[in-house]
């Protein structure tokens, strides 16, 4: 089993964390994993992305050129990476900010109104968790538990009161897919 994913969006949309959670979750599930971020002044332009690989074998290149899973939180990210997704793969896009649908027909396309759902939950910051939920439901690569255990590890102690909200956001994201 091997999964190659790219998470992309504005700085501040939590794309790095999303990628890290999948990687940590994969580690928790006993897989080999890697996470590779964009870094340095290229981040100053405001766009950020990271590559994540999960594998039950050795992780080869940590830099994903042709992802099975693309998560695009804003329009420039979708434009940049859409063509690169492997046939049969997934495009999850943030329908709150992206008004033009992906044109690919050989991949599964999952629109998620991440910002609206986050706002409904009362915290604009959990849009990334909503997205994450959709990914879990559609790909079935990891369980909610894998992610929550990881989140508990990454989140500083003083913010652990946010764990239930995050779990709620993940579950709402899962519902988006099950309702499709």
């Amino acid at each position, binding site marked *: 089993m091997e999964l190659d994913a790219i998470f992309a969006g504005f700085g501040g949309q939590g794309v790095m964390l999303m990628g*890290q959670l999948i*990687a*940590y979750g994969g*580690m928790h599930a006993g897989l*080999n*994993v*890697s*996470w*590779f*971020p964009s*870094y*340095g*002044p*290229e981040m100053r332009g405001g766009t950020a992305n990271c590559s994540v690989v999960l594998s039950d*074998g*050795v*992780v*080869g*290149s*940590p*830099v994903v*050129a*042709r992802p099975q899973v693309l998560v695009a939180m804003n329009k420039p990210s979708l434009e940049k990476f859409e063509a690169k997704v492997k046939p049969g793969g997934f495009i999850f896009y943030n329908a709150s900010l992206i008004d033009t649908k992906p044109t690919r027909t050989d991949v599964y396309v999952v629109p998620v109104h991440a910002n609206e759902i986050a706002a409904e939950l009362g915290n604009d910051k959990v849009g990334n968790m909503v997205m994450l939920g959709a990914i879990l439901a559609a790909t079935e690569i990891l369980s909610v538990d894998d992610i929550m255990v990881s989140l508990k590890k990454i989140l500083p102690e003083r913010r652990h009161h946010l764990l239930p909200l995050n779990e709620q956001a993940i579950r709402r994201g899962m519902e988006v897919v099950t309702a499709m």
Partner: protein
Amino acid sequence: MAERVMMKGNEAVAEGAIRAGCRYFFGYPITPQNEVPEYMSRRLPKIGGVFIQAESEVSAINMVYGAGGAGGRAMTSSSSPGISLKQEGISYIATAEVPCVIVNMARGGPGLGGLTPSQSDYFQAVKGGGHGDYHLIVLAPWSVQEMVDLVGLAFDLADKYRNPAMILGDAILGQMMEPVTFKSEPIDPKDLPAKPWATVGLSGERKPNLINSLGLLPEHLESINLRLQEKYKKIAENEVRFEGTDVDDADLVVVAYGTTSRVAKSAIDQARKDGKKVGLFRPITLWPFPTKQIQELAAAGKRFLVVEMSAGQMVEDVRLAVNGEASVEFFGKLNGAIPTVEEVYREIMSRF
């Protein structure tokens, strides 16, 4: 088994060094290795160590010279342009035989270059780098786990041979996160073997120690050089490390190190599925280079494809090893992007 923790390569090499008993770190900011000094600035003051952000790489490497000469396990890290600045100091350190570890998370050059990963510092690392006839022990990790394992080995080899050792990584290995396991207990610097040659003060018991690289009299300079060459021979005989995968039955052997060897590994797995007899030979010590092992593969009739993120540097050492007895071809990337699995796969397939 010890717990797996996720770490960035830069943090792992720093934590690995601390666990190997390193308590003295001197550095200067440069992307893409900034997490190394940042990690050290957080950790070392808490455990009785010293972190100094030097005013330049020139100064940082000379602080290492002093600290290593005084018997401490000392380290510096930088990326390509900064490593160039350190070369004067490294030449002195090698000649004065001061153990220390230098980390290079290489980025694209030449000149100010860019921030993308690169393997174009290979020559500088393995052929000396500064002036004079000398060598560093050069270790090339291919994963975050090996950052930890090899930095520990680097300190041990540096002490064993009184020679500077280098970890040659790249921007990807520094920036990526992977699970690592800390396999052995942290070393308490107090438990490390004594260094009777160090300049720690006479205490009235012995002749003065001298850490020096000057040899004004020709006979003296010659004797220094002969001693160094003798030592390099011993290191070359005893410390070669490499990993071969699917090499035995292979017709084509891909030679690659570091990040590139991971890409090659994925491409090779794919080509194997297509029934192609191809294997991976991964030097772990870039100096000493696994010359003999490559010679043997050539003698066994194998062909070679060397893959690097450079215009072709390690390929020269492969050619020297093969010495005309087998074909050695090259595939390289110069534009700061790493070769993709698809590209390397195509390169492999086009050779069957």
